[in-house]
Structure formats: C-alpha cells, structure tokens
C-alpha cells in the first residue's frame, strides 16, 4: 500500500500545509503523552494522585488524629509561630556575629596566614596542580576528600537500602508501577528525545573534560561527575529504562563505584603511609600543565568523578523506580 502513495505525502512542504489546516498531526501514534490505561489502573492512579495532593494535610491529620485532639492542633499552631520566631532570632544572632568578622577580602584577615600563603606560593611546585584548589583538596587535604567520597557512597547505600525493590513483586503491582512511571514521564517525547540526542553527547564530553582537566583548570571530580550524572539522567528521561538498562546496569554501577573507591583508598593509603613514615614515594608532581601531571590528582579526580556520577544516577533511578 505505502509504496503506491503519491510522493507529495513525504514532502515537508506538503506535511506542513496539511498540519496548518489541521489534517495532519506529526506526533499522532508516535508521542505518548499519557499512558494507555485499563480502567482499574486509571482509578488507582487517580486515587494516588489525589492522595499525593492531600498528603500534606491528610497524613498529618491521620497520623496525629488531629480532629480528635484539640490540644495537639493548638500545639502545632504554637509550634509554627515559635519556629518562625526562633528562626528569625537565629538569623539575627548570626548576622550580628558576621558583623564582627573581618571584612571580606581584607588582606589582614586571619585566613590570609601561612597556610593560605603556602598553598598559593608552593602549591604548584609541591603538588604539580595548576588548579590550586585541586591541589588542596586532593593532595594537602586528601583524607577529607576521601571522607567526602565516602559520604556519597554511604548515602547511595542508604538509598539503595531504603528504596531498592528486590525479589518477586506481584505482576499487578509491577504493571501499576510501570503505568505510574509512564504517567509521570511520558515515553517517546519527540522534542525531548531530539534535544537529548543533541545534548547528551555534549554534556558527557564536557563532563569528562571537566574531570580530566580538574588539575589544570577550575573543575574536578565533583563538578565533572555531577555533569556526567545529569547527562545520564537526561538520557534516561528521554529514552526510558529499556535503553539505559542496556549499559547502566546495577552490576556496572557497583563495579565502577567499588573500583573507583578502592583505587582511591589504596593510592592514598600508600601516599599517607609514605608521608607519615617519611619514606620516599614514587609519585612525583610531573610537568606542571601537562595532562598527565600532578601525581595522583588526575587519577583521584577520575575516581571522584565516577563515584559522583554513579551516585547521582542511582539516586535518580532509586527514587523513580526502585531498580536499574
């Protein structure tokens, strides 16, 4: 049949004129704005939505039986007023305190002491990082940054612990889950998909650049990892779990996180051990400015970037679906 259609039907101009008069809808049968639903699931969804809309008042009402306990209601009112007053008081005290602090940018301020001087004057020589901030967080104070990566790690574990859906769910609730996912994030959104196609590669490459160049220019593992993670989330939003599930599996996320953190742990243990025991270490600052310089910093940035990207992505999938 299709082969015999007149050629004009394919032309853009023809489609445009037909769209103008309202005969043709380019998104028909391609864009899914709302998931097709059977009646029961639709009602269930409606109930969920109403529940969500009233949650703020409703849960509070149900939990504390506010209708029955007048005193609790009165206390809640008093509590709100007191909370606002206390917050204002605290803000006032903190503002007063700030007025006693040295002025911003004051040369004689206490923070412009020998610590900052050494970071600025000797940072490049000692760490090899042109970006002084990278030298500070990944060399002078690398233990803190390892702790920060572990904060992300433990937060990801906590979210997995709370939200990951394991084992056999009954098919009905799985179908409903799928439904509500499609309801809130419609599939095959042409505009979103086209922009994602254009943006995701750029975002990912930019993120990788920010990570790899972290020791040379502003940026580093934390910001670069966040950029890569947001690119992955955009891709997932546009194309759905079926596409991302092909490469971002739970196994991959686990392996990436564990190898990145283990490398960080091992490399920095070596560095701390040699440093504290005054042993010579084979890690050298290298040529400042080169991409493979600054000792461990570039590798540590990669590790932090991987951890941040994986954490952000797993937060998103856990809150949205409870699985990868």
């Amino acid at each position, binding site marked *: 049949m299709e082969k015999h259609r007149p050629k004009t039907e394919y032309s853009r101009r023809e489609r445009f004129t037909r769209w103008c008069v309202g005969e043709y809808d380019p998104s028909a049968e391609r864009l899914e704005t709302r998931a097709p639903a059977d009646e029961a699931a639709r009602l269930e969804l409606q109930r969920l939505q109403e529940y969500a809309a009233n949650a703020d008042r409703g849960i509070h009402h149900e939990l504390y039986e506010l209708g029955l306990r007048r005193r609790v209601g009165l206390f809640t009112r008093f509590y709100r007023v007191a909370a606002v007053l206390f917050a204002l008081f605290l803000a006032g005290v903190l503002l007063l305190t700030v007025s006693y602090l040295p002025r911003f940018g004051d040369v004689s301020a206490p923070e412009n002491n020998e610590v900052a001087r050494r970071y600025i004057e000797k940072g490049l020589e000692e760490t090899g990082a042109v970006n002084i901030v990278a030298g500070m967080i990944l060399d002078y104070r690398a233990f803190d940054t390892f*702790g920060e990566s572990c904060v992300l790690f433990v937060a990801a574990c906590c979210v997995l612990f709370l939200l990951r859906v394991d084992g056999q769910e009954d098919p009905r609730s799985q179908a409903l889950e799928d439904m509500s996912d499609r309801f809130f994030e419609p599939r095959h959104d042409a505009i979103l998909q086209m922009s994602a196609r254009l943006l995701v590669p750029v975002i990912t490459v930019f993120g990788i650049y920010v990570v790899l160049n972290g020791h040379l220019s502003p940026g580093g593992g934390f910001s670069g990892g966040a950029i890569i993670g947001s690119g992955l989330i955009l891709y997932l939003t546009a194309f759905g779990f079926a596409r991302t599930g092909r490469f971002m599996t739970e196994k991959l996320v686990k392996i990436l996180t564990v190898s990145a953190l283990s490398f960080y742990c091992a490399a920095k243990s070596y560095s701390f*051990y040699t440093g504290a025991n005054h042993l010579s270490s084979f890690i050298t600052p290298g040529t400042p400015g080169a991409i493979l310089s600054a000792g461990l910093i570039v590798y540590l940035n990669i590790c932090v970037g991987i951890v941040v990207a994986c954490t952000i992505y797993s937060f998103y999938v856990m809150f949205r679906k409870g699985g990868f």
Partner: protein
Amino acid sequence: MTLVQNFPFFSIILSMAAAIVSFVLRGRGSRCVHLAMVTAVLAMSAATLGCTAATGESYTFMMGHYPAPWGNEIRVGPLESAMALCFSLLMLLSVLGGLAHIERDIPPSKVNLFYIQLDLMLSSLLALIYTNDLFTAYVFIEICTIAACGLIMARRIGRVYVSAVRYMVMSLVGSGLFLIGLSLLYAITGHLLMSPAKQALAALVGQKSSAVPLTVIFVLLTVSLGIKSGLYPFHTWIPDAYGYTTPAAAAVLSSLVCKGYILLLVKLMVRVLPAASPAAGRITDVLFVLGVTGMIWGSVDAIRERDVRRMTAYSSVAQIGYIYMGLGLGTQWGMVAAMFHVISHGAMKALLFICTAGLTEVSGGRGDRMALRGAGYRHRIAGIGFAIGSMSMIGIPLLTGFVSKYTFAAAATGAAPRRMVAAWIALAVSTTLNAVYFMRTVLVLYTSVEPSQRRAKDYRPSRIENAATIGLILLNIALGVASPPVLETLSRGLAVFG
C-alpha cells in the same frame, strides 16, 4: 615512626576499605568481612593502647606529606586508643549478639548494605576519636549521621521510617549548626587544625571585638553536638530511634554513636576552645544544668514508659545526662568520670538492648512489661544479662555502673560547693528513679508463672548470641572490679589530650 604508631591510621582505612569491598559482596561475605575487620581494629587498638599507655605520651600522625597547619593529621594518645579499643569491642559484641536478628529483620539481598553502614559507622567513630582536624571531624560526622540513619531504618516496620526521618531532621540541624560554627571559627582563626586554632584563639581571648563571635561559636558547636548526642532538651529522637530498629543497631546506636559526638565535644573543649575565655565557664554551667535535668527527666520518662525497649532508650537520655553533668563540673576529675561513664554506659546499654531483644523474642515479640512476665525463665541467659545490666545501671557495687556513680560523686567534691550539692542530689534522685524502673522490670521478668509458660515455644537462642551476652556481662563485671587501671589510663590520657 614504629609500626604500632601506624595502627590508628590502618584501622580507619581498613574499616573504610571493608565498607567499599562489601558493596559487591553477598550478605555472608560482608558479614565475615565486617567481623574480621572489627577484630583486626580491636587488636590494633589494643596494641596502640599498650604502646601509648607505656610511654604516657601522645603523638601526631600526618595523613599525607604535609605537616600540621597544611595537611590533615590525626593524634593518638592513651585516651584515644582506649576509646577505640572499647568502641570496637562493643561493636563486635553488639553485632554478634544481634546476629540472629539481623538475619531475620533484614532481607537477604540487603544484608551487605547493612554491614556497609556498620563498617562506615566504625570508621567514622574512629576518625572522630583520632582526628586533630576540625574539617575531618565534620566530614566524618556526616558519614556517622547517614550511617546511623541507615541503621535506624534497618527493620522494615512503619514506625521506623518516622523515627528515621525525625532523627535525620534533628541530626541535620545539628550538622548545619556545626558547619556554621566551624566556618565562623575558621574566619576568626584561619586554621582548621585544632592545635594551631587553639593558639590563634588564645591570642584573641582578651580582645573585645572577638567576644561575640567566640560566644556564638562556643554555643553553636556545643548545641550541635548536644543535639546529635541526645542532650536533654534535644533528646526527642532517642526513644523511637532506639526502640524499633534491629537490636544490634539499637545497641550500636545507643552505646557508640552518641559517644563519638561527646568525645568530639570533649576534644573541642580541651583542645580548641581556650579555658581562659569567659564563655567557656558559662558553657560548662549550661552543660551542668542540662545534664542534671536530663538525669532526672530521662528517668521520669523511663518510668512512664511501658515498652521495655523504649524504657531502655529513655534511660539512655538519663545516662547521657550523667556524662554531660560530669563535663559540666568543670574539673579534671569530672571529665575523667564522664569518660569512664562513656565506656561504662556503652557496656551496660549494649548488654541491656541485646538481652531485651532475646526476652521479647520469647514473649511473642511483644515488648511491653505485661508480656514479659516470667521471660527470665524462658530465656535464662538474657534474663541474667538483663538483671546484671539493670543492677549495673542502678549502681550495685562490683559492677561498672557503681564505679561510674562513685567517680561522679567523688569528682563533685572538687567542684564549687553549690555544684557539688546539686550533683549529689541529682545522683541520689536519679539512682532512686533508676532503681524504680529497672527493678520493676527485673521483678516482672522473674514473676512466677505457670510451668507451661516457663519454656520458650519454638525458640532457641543461638550460641553466638549467648556468647556475646556472656561477653558483655563479663565486661560489666571486669570494668566494675578492675576499674583503677582504667581510670588511671583515662586520667593520664586526658592529661596529654589537650
């Protein structure tokens, strides 16, 4: 630098590495890794304690290639290593005691995540004990907070989520205040390491312009750590958080987590905030008053409570009050007594939570006092453990609680007369109240019941659980009988702490 001096650093890194590796392991594997790691930390802390107690000196350990004001640093002395030893021992015994419950309460696919949280909890506690850097302390406070939240919601029942959210909100307020205090401190001193910060602060004390920021910083840091450790008016998260989660987590939370923050506060008081400033004196006043109030009100709340687990949790509020009362005395001995009570309360509370779990298990899973009638016959070792823990709490001689109370009372003689009298009265009242609710529960446990109710139906406690309970009982007795060397070590440790 000798190998032993590296051990504190090894223990922190080892516990973090164990957490990282457990992410790809299954439940059994992560459990083995956790137990092996805690045992290794225990052994290393014992070696460090032996080394530092022999010399009686503390030393600093560079975390990296850069010395004090530029790089991170940890500092190790007799007090720190003694605390690390106790914390790892208590964590080992609590986890062993709650092992059977962990398997029951947590779905098998998520057991490794639970152990990750325990691993990181230990690493953050060790870091809080050893660190000599304010920002490292903040980072590990964050780890501790999130891991504690994970431990609170380990058991999948509705109440747990409410309590975890409440803990999260209050604890994050604490973190926020700590961070603000830390930033203000950095703004007026320019240092994040504790010893240089203290020198910078000492120079500022006399100046008029620094009086307001100093007071605000003192208040913010104290309040934030007070919230996190459950000091009296900020204690409302405690009963739910300890009352509903899995017993191992409850034991770890009550006996260790609060104590990590208290140790940090002591470290700030001794190592950072100059004693000469007027604000320091007022802070100890406030801590004393809040501690005394907590001692009384926590016990009153515990008497009102019917559920034994929540009652034990309220008793924690009272015991935290003891510790703050000791700090508020403002004397060296008051601090030694507080430090001893940190250890002693850990040993008592872990024992009580583990035994309560065993007792509720043989009473149809119900924790209220009526259901526990005769539970001491149904689960003998848990009954004995609970009785000993209660007696220790009340302060029967030869048990660790007695030594705590005695040391507090003795320390109060060195304080100002009004404080001394107030501390004695509070100790007497609180001890009486302790006796009311703990003895009442013990009597219920050993009320005579029909022979048919003297046997547990289809429940046999595992050997590991019994062994852990016996270990905790022995720890209570050992701390009670052999307290002089412990107190000696703690006071020598405090002398070189600052």
